[in-house]
């Protein structure tokens, strides 16, 4: 049964129609045209589809599209302010925190959620906060460093 859903994505009012069994990830990618969130597993185990839903970090593959009614969705496409990149985006590029880049949108959203709650995380806190995001290229070293550098940058130190 197709249902009409009104939601807000990256600050814009967005309406879409979807089937009940479509996930928010399906909707973002196939109905709304935002393909930044990636499907790496479809079971919540890789984090490549991470988005922020009403302020909470979630796997969009484990949210139904219809659940987004009246809620606010933030995706990687909304991270930069126009051409001005978010500090996380800048630091990820500068620190080579990405190789293939498929996991990057998910890491950026998870890191954003982390820094909002914890502006000065330890290495261990960063590692545990990002444990829901799999990266197979980097060995995580440069990702952790990029998040550390961003945190320092955003704290102004």
């Amino acid at each position: 049964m197709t249902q009409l859903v009104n939601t807000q994505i990256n600050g814009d009012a967005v309406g879409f129609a979807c089937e009940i069994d479509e996930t928010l990830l399906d909707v973002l990618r196939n109905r709304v045209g935002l393909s930044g969130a990636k499907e790496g597993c479809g079971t919540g185990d890789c984090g490549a589809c991470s988005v922020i839903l009403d302020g909470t970090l979630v796997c969009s593959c484990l949210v139904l599209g219809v659940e987004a009614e009246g809620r606010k969705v933030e995706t990687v496409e909304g991270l930069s302010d126009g051409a001005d990149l978010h500090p996380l985006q800048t630091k990820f590029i500068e620190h080579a925190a990405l190789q293939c880049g498929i996991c990057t949108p998910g890491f950026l959203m998870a890191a954003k959620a982390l820094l909002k709650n914890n502006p000065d995380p330890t290495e261990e806190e960063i590692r545990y906060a990002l444990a829901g995001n799999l990266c197979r290229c980097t060995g995580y070293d440069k990702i952790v460093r990029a998040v550390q550098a961003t945190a320092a940058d955003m704290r102004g130190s």
Partner: protein
Amino acid sequence: MVRYEAPQTTPEAIALLASAKGRVHILAGGTDLIVRMKGEYIEPDVIVDIKRIKSMQSIRKTAAGTSIGAAATCGSMGRHKALKKAWPGVVEAANLIGSDQIQGRCTIVGNLCNASPAADSIPALIAAGAQALVIGPKGERLLDVDKIPTGPGKNSLKKGEMVVSIELPARAPRSADAYLRFTPRTEMDIAVVSAAVNLTIDKKSVITEARVVLGAVAITAIRVPAAEAALIGNTLDEATLAAVAEACSAACNPINDKRGTVEYRTRVAGVLAKRAAQSAWARAGGKA
């Protein structure tokens, strides 16, 4: 065709569950439900999303203790300071379920009703002596949580019934709990074996009350009375710890599967119980 309902109140939800035809599934965190839908293990006719029900999202102090709503996420439990202080073991168990992303959605009621033998929160809830408030067409009932899971993926709820909250008792002084699990990875994993210990000590650090529960060593989480008996009346010396470990290993009746072997689970259950007891005892203020 699947139907989606998002009631705003508990009575509405109960009415929907009672009237809905076909396969009705409750959507709380969705972290199990949606995976099972996508994997085509289940095909719901009706999905009742309870996350719009305000009362079910709350964690609140009650006359009897603490009440955790069925839609309260495990992440919100971790952020609840009073809950964390009173029930550190329950909270650490809830917070071990999946990643931060999963924590933002999953619930302990979902974990309980999903009834995996390896569920993290169930041993901790049983050790805590938690009860589940069940509402259904015939009214309310309060059940000890260990009465909910009946086997892997099976629970004792009747048609139209749902767990609306978990009720944790009030804390006696010098009490604490702890939960430990073994997983190959540090995070993002399912317990190969787990142990929860909840205990109360007197002023001399002698244990006066104890509950010991193991996960992933039988078709449901199990209490280990022999380990509890070994704890009560003693401080946590080497002999007591050895007795706890031995009793726990002896109580195991696990299976071999892709996640672990009978031999390994049996052995490590004792190790984890011993360590959980040490942790709970220290939290309760126990001193050697």
